[in-house]
């Protein structure tokens, strides 16, 4: 573990150094978007490194760490050591600095103490992280759930935080990275709208305290990162940064989830509305277009992989959408006016009030929070009337809001896909608070309440935070399985197996195998070949047949034991 920690330090030092290198070489005078570009380069470099090492089957702590040491040495040969003083830090004042440190410290504590607990996350988001960490490679196997084949751009960052320690204790740090990206995005956007450094940073802090976004950061969901990248792209377009960075941001977003692409109409509108403002040009076109190339790779890789393997870039979605086990369409493909109208109605009449407690899955709520509602909505109205640039950004993001709502099915959790929108509400709220003192008081109160209310997500398992905190960190895990085989027993997962991530254990010490048998004999043969005694899966005809013939015995939960 100590060795892994050292490799992790080396890897992170190298990525930070090279992000600094790209920032300085490409944009020697980046202005307020410096923090944003730096974070963007960091996330892109990590994604490309994990993708490269994963595809070559070299995804181990030692390999990544050694590469980190080597590339760090290379950096020092070709460049001078980075200096914190050279970085264009915003002058934000002691109070904002204290607030930022407080929020960051709590996020680190949350990442440390929480273990993945959301049922969607442990069923189909992160089993691939466990599988690829165990395999030391990005393999074809990503889990038994059909949705495991969705794009895995966010999982690349999660792998970064998992591979070095070969443990998932820091997996939530991936979401925290994207939360800081959104901090940089809103800061840059607010500066473009003419706000000074302090109010811009206040707006950025307010946005990262948006309950839905903040809780998503430490729960391994990928909608928060998508929102961060929509805000990032909007900020880069409004600041008229060169196209390469916009392509990089868009590539990262599309590579995480197709819902990023749903927001593109609004981002294109934003690009059109800001077209007359001067654009800064990068100094090194070759390096700049390499950055854009990186974005293209990250944005297209998962879709090309699905096209090659399944003949469908958006597999398992089809042109009809994606049906759930009961046959109804769980998610639509393509636009539907009826969805737009239903989603808008639900947002306006119900979700925006957040009628139930804040939780990262955003069931029945918007998660936009008090500040966006009480200060942001009146501010949106006022500044759309009187502030030209604000109107343009609001128009772009509202168009994105509309296009996303047009393309997603009205369900309990569709608000997860529009977490980018409170960014403009937070900026507006801060602008309004600069005019009226009582509103400033409301905004500060809202910040405190949102900070307090995002300490523990409402959907933590029974026992809440203490359930996780009581466990030693090496063993910390959601104890959801009513029964599980001994730690070193391999388990075969068959279709219908749920919560498969938990089987791996936090240190990925258990061997988990996946089988999709069409006959009982096929499964028995598979189990014998891999010397596995246990199966987890839904009671399918194959398993029932083996139970009837006495070759498998039913165990608690979804487990079966070889007799």
């Amino acid at each position, binding site marked *: 573990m100590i060795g892994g920690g050292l490799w992790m330090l080396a890897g992170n030092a190298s990525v930070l150094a090279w992000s600094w290198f790209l920032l300085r070489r490409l944009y020697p005078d980046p202005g307020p978007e410096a923090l944003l570009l730096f974070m963007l380069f960091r996330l892109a470099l990590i994604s490309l490194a994990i993708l490269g090492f994963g595809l070559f089957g070299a995804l181990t702590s030692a390999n990544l760490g050694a590469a980190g040491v080597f590339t760090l040495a290379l950096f020092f040969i070709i460049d001078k050591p980075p200096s914190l003083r050279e970085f264009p830090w915003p002058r934000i004042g002691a109070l904002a600095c204290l607030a930022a440190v407080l929020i960051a410290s709590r996020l680190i504590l949350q990442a440390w103490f929480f273990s993945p607990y959301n049922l969607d996350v442990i069923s189909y988001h992160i089993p691939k992280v466990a599988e690829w960490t165990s395999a030391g490679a990005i393999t074809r196997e990503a889990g038994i759930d059909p949705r495991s084949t969705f794009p895995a751009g966010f999982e690349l960052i999660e792998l970064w935080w998992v591979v070095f320690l070969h443990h998932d204790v820091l997996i939530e740090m991936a979401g925290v990275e994207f939360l800081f990206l959104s901090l940089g995005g809103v800061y840059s956007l607010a500066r473009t709208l003419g706000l000074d450094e302090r109010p811009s940073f206040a707006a950025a802090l307010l946005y990262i305290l948006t309950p839905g976004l903040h809780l998503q950061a430490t729960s391994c969901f990928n909608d928060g990162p998508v929102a961060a990248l929509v805000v990032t792209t909007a900020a880069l377009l409004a600041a008229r940064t060169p196209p390469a960075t916009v392509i990089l941001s868009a590539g990262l977003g599309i590579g995480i989830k197709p819902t990023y692409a749903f927001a593109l109409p609004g981002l294109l509108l934003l690009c059109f509305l800001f077209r007359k403002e001067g654009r800064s040009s990068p100094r090194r076109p070759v390096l700049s277009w390499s950055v854009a190339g990186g974005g293209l790779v990250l944005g297209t890789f998962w879709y090309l992989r699905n096209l090659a393997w399944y003949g469908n870039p958006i597999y398992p979605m089809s042109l009809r959408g994606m049906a759930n086990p009961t046959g109804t369409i769980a998610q639509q493909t393509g636009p539907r006016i009826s969805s737009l109208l239903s989603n808008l109605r639900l947002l306006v009449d119900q979700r925006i009030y*957040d009628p*139930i407690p804040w939780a990262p899955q955003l069931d029945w709520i918007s998660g936009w929070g008090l500040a966006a509602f009480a200060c942001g*909505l009146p501010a949106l109205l006022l500044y759309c009337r009187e502030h030209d640039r604000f109107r343009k950004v609001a128009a772009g993001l509202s168009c994105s809001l509309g296009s996303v709502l047009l393309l997603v099915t009205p369900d309990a959790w569709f608000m997860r896909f529009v977490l980018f929108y409170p960014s403009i509400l937070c900026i507006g709220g801060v602008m309004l608070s600069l005019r*009226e003192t009582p509103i400033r008081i409301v905004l500060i109160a809202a910040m405190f309440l949102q900070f307090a209310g995002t300490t523990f997500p*409402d959907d933590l398992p029974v026992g809440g935070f203490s359930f996780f905190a009581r466990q030693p960190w090496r063993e910390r895990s959601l104890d959801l399985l009513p029964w599980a085989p001994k730690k070193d027993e391999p388990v075969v997962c068959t279709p219908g197996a749920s919560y498969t991530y938990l089987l791996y254990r936090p240190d990925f010490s258990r061997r988990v195998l996946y089988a999709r048998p069409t006959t009982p004999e096929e499964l028995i043969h598979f189990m014998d070949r891999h010397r596995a005694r246990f199966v987890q899966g839904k009671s399918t005809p194959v398993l029932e047949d083996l139970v009837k013939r006495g070759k498998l015995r039913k165990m608690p939960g979804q487990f079966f034991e070889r007799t």
Partner: protein
Amino acid sequence: MMPRPEGARRATLETVIALFFLTWRLATYPFSTFYRDWVALLSLYWIITAWGQESKLWPWITSILVLWLMTIYSRNQLPFIIDGLRLLS
């Protein structure tokens, strides 16, 4: 203070749009829920802003609206926040 003629034209147009929203909300929901409907409240505020943003009362109206919206939102969420923080003890 009344807006100037070109401002009056714009204020009239904004009022028509705000009235459209107001009518929609009043036609869809009972009048008794008006006080806690953010769309209706903002529509009303829009009309006031279009005609009276220069007025001395306008900052007060804005502050009262923000405080009222905070109250509407907190009525739902504040008990949950307090309840959630009990986990700390």
